[in-house]
């Protein structure tokens, strides 16, 4: 194993070590415009600024207090986050609200975390001051602006004891309609997860990370930023907006800085395949990549095959893809494909899968459903497949809920003893083995790899069969050229008697004024029936960029469902099945 063998008790210890032993080496380089404006920082300078930030915090709050971090992508965020660790203050990273729509979540989080301070930049503060003025949740909060931290304050810093069991930060989950829950990640969880990543994806002293992922979210924070400090390697970062505006910037940065490690959810690879032109490809060389993580949303074989084809010219190979599985409750990572191996997949019968049965079929089978292997843990996590109803371990030919016992499993949810017990202290009903963390994800283990079938809470159950919404969404987006990929939601609604399938899908900009909406909706209805044996109860077409997504770009099905039931969706065309038998109303 070529991974840097150095191990630390806490991330603070790691940065102190890096600052002492490699002070002049590059830690981060922030590409402010995604291309040419470069803001670098070395480990030595980073440590000094983190000490200064921590010293400032120490004059305001005490260890264990919560500090809300409201930052855009950039060095200020990293310094503030690490500053919290240096002050033994619990960081609560979150997205900067820019629309009124995303502020209810922030207020709920504020209330739940009982934050004592809110840290941000002056620019952001000016924009969101109205929140503080209008909401009681902010009335007792002290604002800390990064610009106010004295550069020479580092000398005043009081080093706290390295406490592996103290909470390092709260990672709030992307709950949209319910109150968000803060996952309590300890210093130990954080360090062990980074070791899991380090060994699992072979981060060594020659590695170079490139990331555009949101910094307040687990994958962007831990894989994109923190693993660089731990391993003592540079990370080149840009904002999600830079990437979304021009996906080319991401691959170009990899090419320019000879990136070896990068990560993104599946949709990002689709976006690159669609948006990067042949001319742009001419200046991209992806041969430096060792590990290209595909995680955080369902991993699609087709996406990876198409991306590999599209970027073969740029020296990209399919085996550079590293499908991975993780969740905030396990700090970020559970498993990843072994570096150097080709991503494994198996072809299942989708109709048996709906009944939680694993039946392997040929690729030519009309019900063929490819499922991607997400590898295994690099820190010996105990991973089990369990029937969620009986809580008994599932036989090998069944799909069940993924249960985990590992050093990366978080302490629980902040101030939620009941939900925490249910999720983090599960035991097998027959053998009493435990405690396990219930992931809420359905999957199976095959040939030593974890495979994910879908989320329990998103699962659409109609007439006793389980459907994974992402499968229906894929069918939908492919059935007509007017539809925007990765911009549809499938979910069930309950009319009191039965569950019914509803699909909501964006149309492309150029089709916004189409006079053919009926034809498009008809195509969706027929395609879903054909591929899933299921009729939609309502098919709704909406304008581009109006579907509810999380800050990291995942479809928020529950929010779309709520907007559908409340009648608050902006609708271009809608077809609904008649409630009573009779003639359709469409």
């Amino acid at each position: 194993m070529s991974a840097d063998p150095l191990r630390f008790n806490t991330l603070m210890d790691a940065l102190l070590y890096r600052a002492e032993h490699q002070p002049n080496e590059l830690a981060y380089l922030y590409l402010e415009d995604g291309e040419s404006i470069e803001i670098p920082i070395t480990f030595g300078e980073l440590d000094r600024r983190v000490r200064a930030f921590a010293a400032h915090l120490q004059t305001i709050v005490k260890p264990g207090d919560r500090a809300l971090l409201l930052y855009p992508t950039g060095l200020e965020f990293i310094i503030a986050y690490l500053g919290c660790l240096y002050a033994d203050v619990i960081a609560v990273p979150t997205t900067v609200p820019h629309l009124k729509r995303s502020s209810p979540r922030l207020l709920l989080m504020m209330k739940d975390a009982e934050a004592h301070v809110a840290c941000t930049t002056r620019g952001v503060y000016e924009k969101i001051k109205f929140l503080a003025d209008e909401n009681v949740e902010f009335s007792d909060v002290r604002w800390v602006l990064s610009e106010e931290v004295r550069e020479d304050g580092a000398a005043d810093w009081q080093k706290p004891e390295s406490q592996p069991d103290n909470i390092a930060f709260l990672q709030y989950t992307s709950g949209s309609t319910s109150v968000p829950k803060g996952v309590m990640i300890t210093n130990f969880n954080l360090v062990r997860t980074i070791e899991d990543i380090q060994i699992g994806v072979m981060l060594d002293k020659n590695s170079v990370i490139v990331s555009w992922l949101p910094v307040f979210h687990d994958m962007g924070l831990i894989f994109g930023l923190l693993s660089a400090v731990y391993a003592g390697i540079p990370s080149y970062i840009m904002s999600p907006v830079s990437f979304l505006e021009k996906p080319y910037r991401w691959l170009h940065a990899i090419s320019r800085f000879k990136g070896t490690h990068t990560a993104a959810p599946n949709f990002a690879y689709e976006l690159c395949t669609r948006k990067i032109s042949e001319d742009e490809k001419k200046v991209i060389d992806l041969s430096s990549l060792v590990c290209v993580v595909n995680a955080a949303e369902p991993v699609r074989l087709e996406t990876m095959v198409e991306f590999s084809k599209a970027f073969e010219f740029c020296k990209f190979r399919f085996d550079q893809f590293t499908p991975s599985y993780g969740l905030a409750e396990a700090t970020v990572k559970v498993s990843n494909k072994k570096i150097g191996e080709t991503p494994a997949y198996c072809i299942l019968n989708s109709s048996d899968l709906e009944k939680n049965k694993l039946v392997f079929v040929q690729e030519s089978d009309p019900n063929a459903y490819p499922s991607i292997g997400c590898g295994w843990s690099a820190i010996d996590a105990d991973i089990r497949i369990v029937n969620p109803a009986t809580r008994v371990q599932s036989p090998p030919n069944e799909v069940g809920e993924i249960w985990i016992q590992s050093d990366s499993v978080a302490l629980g949810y902040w101030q939620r003893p009941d939900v925490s017990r249910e999720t983090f202290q599960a035991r097998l009903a027959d053998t009493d083995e435990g405690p396990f963390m219930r992931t809420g994800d359905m999957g199976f283990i095959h040939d030593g790899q974890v495979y994910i079938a879908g989320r329990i809470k998103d699962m659409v159950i109609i007439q006793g069969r389980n459907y994974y919404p992402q499968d229906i969404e894929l069918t939908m987006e492919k059935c007509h050229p007017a539809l925007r990929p990765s911009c549809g939601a499938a979910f069930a609604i309950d009319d009191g008697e039965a569950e019914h399938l509803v699909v909501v899908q964006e149309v492309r900009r150029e089709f916004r004024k189409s006079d053919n909406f009926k034809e498009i909706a008809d195509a969706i209805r027929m395609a879903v029936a054909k591929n899933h044996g299921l009729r939609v109860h309502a098919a709704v077409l909406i304008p581009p960029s109006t579907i509810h997504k999380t800050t990291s770009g995942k479809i928020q099905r529950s929010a779309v469902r709520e907007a559908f039931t409340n009648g608050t969706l902006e609708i271009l065309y809608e077809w609904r099945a008649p409630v009573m038998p009779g003639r359709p109303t469409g």
Partner: protein
Amino acid sequence: MDQNEIKAKLRKFICNEILNNAEYPLKDDEALITSGLMDSFSLAQVGVFAELEFNVYIPDPELTVDRMNTLDDMSARILEKMQA
């Protein structure tokens, strides 16, 4: 539209789209699902076809193997809905 026209359209749809064999000599009273010729899965497609082509909605409890096993059954049910 009479039952024979409905049957003709249904036959064409089922042979082309579900059986993937336009030449298949499908008889009016031939069992489609119980014979294994087509999957009960495919009834959803027949249901949507009825909605699009004949503008009738067959509710789920009626879109079942015992009520929709032959062209005769299907066309009779569709006609009944059209006349309702």
